[in-house]
Each structure stands twice: as C-alpha cells, then as structure tokens.
C-alpha cells in the first residue's frame, strides 16, 4: 500500500555533508534543497514534529520575498530557510536536529518499525486481513536524486492502464523533484506518454518528449518486468542526470474492469494460461462491474472537473473529514469524501465513503491508487475545488456546496455534479463474458439463484443462473392483493373457512409461479413451501391492528386475540416450517396445487417440461417428510388427471437443523434432494441467533475465538462437519441424491470453495452474487483439480 509505511529521503545530510554534496554535484541549490527536505521529513516521521509547521515557514518565506513557486527559491533562500527549520525543531523538541548520520539512521529505522504499530497501519491491516505478527522490513538504499536539475526527474508508472486495463504505459512524472512530490499529490504531475498528454490536454511536455532516452530505457524495463512477473506492474523510478534508476516494482492495484482485461489479454497472448487468468480475478471485485453508471440522458449540473482516477458513479452527502465519513457511514448515510488531498491517515474514511474527490493530486496520487484498489469511484486533482474546513463547505468559482449537500461523482469522466443524477445498470463487457466462459468450463458446481419475483429471477438468469435454488413463498403473501386473504385464513376458526380463504389465494399464488416458470423455462426451480410463523403476517401493535381492521373489515378484537394466541417466545424455534404443514396441511396443499397448475400451464404454453423441486423447510424427522410428501403427491395426481399434462417434480427438504443432518440417511429415503439452509443451520448449530449476534460477534472475531463471521463464511469445522455428515449419509441411503446449498454462504467465495470440495451439485445465491459464484466455483475447480 503506497505510503503505508514511513519513508525518509536524503538521510545522512548534515551541516557538513551538505557542503560536500554541493561540491560533488556542482549544484549548491540542489544540495540545500535536499537538506531542507530531509529536515522536514525526518522531523515529521522520526521526531514527531508536524510537517505543516515547515510548510508554514516555507509559505511565509515565499510570501515575504514575493515568490509564488518553490522554483524561485535560490540556494541562499534555502540556506536561510534551513536555519529557520532547525530553529523550529529546537523550539518544538528542546534539542537540536541530529547531525550524526549514524544517529539519524538508527532513528529512522526505529521509526519505520514503530510505524508498523501505528493507527493507520493497524486499520489497513484489519481491512486487508494481515496479522500484526508479520512485522515490516526496512530498506536502506543509496540515494539517487530526482531533484538534481532539469535532467533529473521522478515518477510512478503502471505497465498497463490500471483503470481500463488497456495495454499502454500509464503514469506520471515530475522534473526536478523527489518521489514524495508525486505520491503525496503536492504538485500535480505531468504525463508519461505523449498520447496521454494530448488526451489530457496538458501543456507541459510528457516524459516521452522531454526525456526520450530515459523513457526508452524505462519502456524496455516495463516489458522486461511484465514478462518476468507475468503480471501488470506498478513501478517507481527516478532519473538522476539522464540515468534511470528503478526504486520499486510490485503487482499493480487495478479496477475489476482492468483486472478482467489484463487477465484476458495476457491469456490471449500466451503469457498466462486461461486457468491462471481465471484465478487472477478476485471474485468479490466483480461487484464493481455490476455498479451502476450515470444515465447518459439524465439532466446534470456540473460543479467541478478533475481527473478520472477510479471509475464508477456514486451519489451521497458531502463530508470533509475522514472521521465524519466514518461516523455518518456507520449511521447508514451514503457519503462522498471531499478532501484537498488524502494521506494514509484517511484510510478508514475512504473505506467508508461511496466516492472520493480530491482537489490536488494526479492519477497516481494516494487517493487515486487507494480508491482503485477499493473499487471506490474517485475524482482526483479537481483543482478548482477550494475547501473551507471551518465553514464546513467547499466552493468552486464562488459556488458553495455545504457539508451534507448531495453530490454525484462520476469517476469514469472525472466529473462532480450537484444533486443526484439518474443511473443505469452497466452492460457486461466482452472480457467479462470471455473470462466467465473460462470459469464455466472449469467449474463442476452448478450455479442457481435465490429469487421469488420476476425482476430478480430475470436479472439472475442474465448473469448466468442455471436454475432457482430457493424461491421463498412467504414473500409472496406479503403483497397487498393477498395479505388480507392470508390474514383471513390465519383467523379462520375451522378448517372449512381456512380452505375457503386459501381458495382465494390459489389463483394469485399460481400466477406467481407462472411468471417465474415462464422466465426459467425448463431450468429447475426449487420452491420452498411456507416457512415463517403465522403471527409474522398479523399486525402487532394496537394501532396497526386498528388500521388493518379498518382496511380489511376484519374485526379488530378478533385480530388482536388471534395475534396474542399465536404469539411465541422464541419464534425462530417455534411453530414454523414443516410444523405449519403438519398442523395446517391445507396450506401446503394449496401451495402444491398452485405450483402444479402453473407447471401444467407453462409446460403447455411453451411446449416444454417445467421442472419444479418442492422443498419442505425445517424438517428434523423422516416422519414429517413422509406425511407431507404423501399429501403433496396426492395433489400432483389430481392436477395431472385434471390437466392431462405431465408434471415433472421432485420433493426434497432443507437441511437446516442439526438433527436433520445427523438423520440424513432416514430423511433421504423420502427426500429426492437436500438443500442446505446454512443460515439456520449456523444459528442452530451454534445456538446463536443471528439478529442478536451483532452485539458480541465482533468481540469474538477480534479475540480470535472465531476467525470470521460464521454467517458470512461458513464455519467449516462445526457447521461444515454437519454438512459433510449429511452428504455422506444421504448419498449412502440414496445414491445420486441432488445436493445444493441455498444459504447466503452460497455467494461467498471461501464457502463455495468448501462446498466444491464436499462434492455438492450446486450452490444458490442472490442474483447479484451469481457472477461471483460462477467465478468462485471455477477457481475452486482449478485449485483442487489434482486433489479431488
């Protein structure tokens, strides 16, 4: 992470050696400039004297002399300034700036080691899953000077475009400068290539034009490094009097879009294999590609323009500090962080922000690099933005935008707009389709979606879902046109009036399934029969009861009485799931009839065979399943006879209770498929209510009792063991039984890897997780090719 650990440049300079450097270089101004930089950096990083103290001294000095730029400072000016700097150190610390190079060196080494334990490093490690026990190394390296006149420069480059992935050199440099000037965004740097300069409309020459020899050499190094590392590289370099020096190389951070393009391009050119390309993409990063972009036709009110530092669009409230961004984001606000520039101290706030805008800094500034790595939209170097922290606003050419005002940031164009701008869903690019195709070739797991409304199901199918793994029917009853009938059913005193009410629901419920079957055609659809306790459908407070009574004409007293009657102390473990089916068989019978009739209808209409998988929830005993299955089969026979059309269905069960997992052999005698409901299985295995876990789970993770939140990544040792047992016993009793998972773990890469190893048939996840699941399943298959 750039700038995460501390750096000290020009170490070893003191009142005596600076004179030597002046003689050796034949450039006294350069030597003194280096020395004053050293005092400032060392004092800041090692001695803890705030760097703004030195900036203020410099600004005041320039003001007093009528200078507006550092380049106007002469050797004598720097010399005078050094006296002021050293005095500032003495005033702040009560002791002189250390002159002994050995003392300077040990001080700097200690500061770097200590910076491993500072706040920003701790936050970064937490965000990146890096244990504190690793420690940091310290590099001590001969100085090469990018500030030794106009034949010297320093820069940052990427071997390919980290924003789009295009195979072109990308970067920035500054003539007569030191590395910190580029990274910290203090001066806005110049383009590396002529093409980029022309595209940006810059007047200042690119490196390609100003230093053709050094640039030519750099371009060769790019090729050599890419071929060697077989990946896009992020490089820091310095040119000292026309000689190129390499200061750093590492795999470059990139957007998801760039990652896809680079992986596909490198595989196409034979640099890496298709399987390596699939492994190169972080599955969760695909989320970025699914982000909306601005609607081209939407009206917009442009406030400021900067550099397109990290693509994507976001709307939110303006915040001017990282702590405020964190605070508001925690409270559920969408915020846009607007800063003059960012530094590693801002990392938590940047993480919390929906987008980032900076007034200073280039395409490789701290804000730009970090934002791209996080997948957060960013506009950097919006130089017309003036931030007034005290007044709590920023202004552009006299127009004032206050903290809390809504703005929209478009990281792809580098524009900032007032108010909210309408957005559209993105098109999936060719690289996405290509790479997903490679993942599909590799994977053995099927990918299904959880979904119950036509919009979700259509979206998921577009993302490549091969079926529905979980269609929850209870959501359907909350719709206004049937809630009243459903309540009538719950309030019914006897079976006959219950059936009466259910008959009114049947046609609407059938239409729900017709809509879904039409979209999924002959792909399998797993439909879960009613799961939550009945009181969830009844109004709770007296006011609610009165409102419902008025709207439906149902007697308020009756509603209240029945709601009280149905009240449960612990609904999660109460009268729900198949227990409802046992008590009120007519509910499941109505649902089964709705499914079968819809199947017959759509099968006829589309001339294919709709495959429904009817899933019974919360089973703990084979008896429950046996009773309910018999009842449902009876309905199927009736519908077949009535319609004269074949119906293709199977009946299976959720495995979401430890007892069901342990008794899987008995249950499999009746179940044609198992679908692991790992949300409930995690709750019931840990004896832990998910809704209450938020209060203490963070402590458990922080103290290492749990490695991760078990509702995000499956607990392989405990819950996973039950899953493994159930699969083994289930398959022993019924070879070929279809096995999938429909908990939220179905969209988590680490959990998918585990389900692949267990030999499941498919995973099912929410629509927007489908691409992530496809890629994760492909990666799991490649990773374990030789072990399973």
């Amino acid at each position, binding site marked *: 992470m750039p700038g995460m650990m501390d750096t000290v440049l020009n170490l070893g300079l003191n009142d005596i050696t600076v004179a030597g450097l002046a003689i050796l270089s034949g450039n006294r101004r350069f030597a003194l400039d280096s020395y004053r930089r050293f005092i400032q950096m060392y004092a800041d990083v090692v001695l803890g004297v705030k760097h703004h103290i030195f900036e203020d001294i410099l600004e005041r000095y320039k003001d007093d002399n009528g200078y507006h730029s550092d380049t106007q400072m002469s050797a004598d000016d720097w010399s005078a300034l050094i006296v002021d700097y050293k005095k500032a150190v003495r005033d702040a610390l009560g002791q002189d700036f250390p002159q002994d190079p050995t003392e300077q060196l040990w001080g700097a*080494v*200690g500061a770097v*080691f*200590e910076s*491993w*334990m500072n706040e920003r490093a701790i936050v970064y490690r937490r965000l990146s899953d890096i244990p504190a*026990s*690793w*420690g*940091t*190394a*310290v*590099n*001590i*390296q*001969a*100085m*090469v000077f990018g500030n030794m006149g106009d034949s010297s420069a320093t820069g940052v480059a990427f071997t390919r475009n980290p924003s789009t992935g295009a195979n072109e050199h990308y970067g920035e440099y500054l003539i007569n400068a030191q590395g910190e000037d580029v990274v910290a965004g203090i001066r806005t740097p110049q383009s590396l290539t002529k093409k980029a300069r022309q595209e940006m409309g810059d007047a200042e020459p690119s490196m390609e034009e100003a230093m053709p020899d050094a640039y030519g050499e750099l371009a060769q*190094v790019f090729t*050599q*490094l890419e071929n*060697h*590392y077989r990946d896009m590289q992020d490089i820091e370099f310095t040119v000292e009097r026309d*000689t*190129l*020096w*390499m*200061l*750093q*190389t*590492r795999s470059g951070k990139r957007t998801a879009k760039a990652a896809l393009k680079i992986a596909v391009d490198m595989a196409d050119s034979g640099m890496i294999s298709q399987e390596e390309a699939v492994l190169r993409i972080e599955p969760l990063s695909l989320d970025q590609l699914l982000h909306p972009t601005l609607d081209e036709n939407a009206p917009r009110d442009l406030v400021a323009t900067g550099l397109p530092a990290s693509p994507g669009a976001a709307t939110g409230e303006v915040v001017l500090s990282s702590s405020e961004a964190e605070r508001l984001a925690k409270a559920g606000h969408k915020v846009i962080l607007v800063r003059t520039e960012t530094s590693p101290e801002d990392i938590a706030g940047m993480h919390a922000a929906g987008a980032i805008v900076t007034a200073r800094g280039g395409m490789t500034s701290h804000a730009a690099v970090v934002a791209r790595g996080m997948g957060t939209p960013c506009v950097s170097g919006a130089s017309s933005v003036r931030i007034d922290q005290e007044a709590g606003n920023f202004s552009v050419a006299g127009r004032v935008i206050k903290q809390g005002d809504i703005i929209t940031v478009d990281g792809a164009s580098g524009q900032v707009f007032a108010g909210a701008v309408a957005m559209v869903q993105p098109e999936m690019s060719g690289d996405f389709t290509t790479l997903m195709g490679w993942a599909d070739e590799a994977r053995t797991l099927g990918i299904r979606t959880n979904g119950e409304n036509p919009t979700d199901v259509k979206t998921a199918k577009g993302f490549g879902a091969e079926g529905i793994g979980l269609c929850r029917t209870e959501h359907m009853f909350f719709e206004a046109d049937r809630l009243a009938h459903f309540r009538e059913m719950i309030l019914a005193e006897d079976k006959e009036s219950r059936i009466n009410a259910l008959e009114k629901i049947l046609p609407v419920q059938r239409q729900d399934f017709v809509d879904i079957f039409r979209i999924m055609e002959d792909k399998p659809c797993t439909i879960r029969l009613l799961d939550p306790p009945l009181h969830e459908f009844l109004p709770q407070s007296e006011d609610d009861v009165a409102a419902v009574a008025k709207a439906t004409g149902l007697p308020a007293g009756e509603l209240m009485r029945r709601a009280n009657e149905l009240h449960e102390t612990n609904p999660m473990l109460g009268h729900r799931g198949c227990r409802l089916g046992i008590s009120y068989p007519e509910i499941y019978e109505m649902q089964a009839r709705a499914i079968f009739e819809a199947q017959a209808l759509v099968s006829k209409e589309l001339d294919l065979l709709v495959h429904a998988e009817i899933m019974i929830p919360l089973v703990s005993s084979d008896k429950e399943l046996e009773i309910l299955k018999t009842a449902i089969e009876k309905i199927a026979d009736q519908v077949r006879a009535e319609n004269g059309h074949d119906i293709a269905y199977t009946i299976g069960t959720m495995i979401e209770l430890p007892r069901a997992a342990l008794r899987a052999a008995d249950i499999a005698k009746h179940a044609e498929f198992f679908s692991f409901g790992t949300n409930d299985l995690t709750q019931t295995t840990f004896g832990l209510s998910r809704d209450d876990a938020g209060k203490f789970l963070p402590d458990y993770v922080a103290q290492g009792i749990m490695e991760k939140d078990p509702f995000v990544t499956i607990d392989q040792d405990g819950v996973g063991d039950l899953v493994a047992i159930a699969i083994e016993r289930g398959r022993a009793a019924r070879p070929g039984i279809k096995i999938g998972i429909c908990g939220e773990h179905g969209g988590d890469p680490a959990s998918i890897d585990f389900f692949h190893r267990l030999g499941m048939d498919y995973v099912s996840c929410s629509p927007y997780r489908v691409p992530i699941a496809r890629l994760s399943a492909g990666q799991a298959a490649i990773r374990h090719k030789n072990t399973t």
Partner: protein
Amino acid sequence: MTKYVYEFGGGATDGSAKDKNLLGGKGANLAEMASLGLPVPPGFTLTTEVCVHYNENDKTYPAD
C-alpha cells in the same frame, strides 16, 4: 545465527521475490530487480524478524 541483513544491488544480491515474508514486498522486489540486472541503487534490507524483535523486546535490536 539468524541472517538479519540482506543486500541488494551493487554486485551482491542475497534475496529474491520469494522472500516477501522476510524482506517485505518492496525489499523482495528490489532484490529481484537487482538480480535481473536492472539499475537498482545499492542497499540492504533489515528483515521483518528484526521488526518483530524490536516490537516484542521493548524497542531493542537483536544482538547479532
């Protein structure tokens, strides 16, 4: 004796990109670039083990 200091550039290079855990990402890649014959200003890396020692032993360095 544990090796706490790795040199790079200037003719002698001890580490490589494989030594990320010991040399840190930057140090390991500097060593790797030096081995490839690229122009890297000479220097040396104090390993992460020194850091662990430093932070665990009241800000002191290993004896050897």
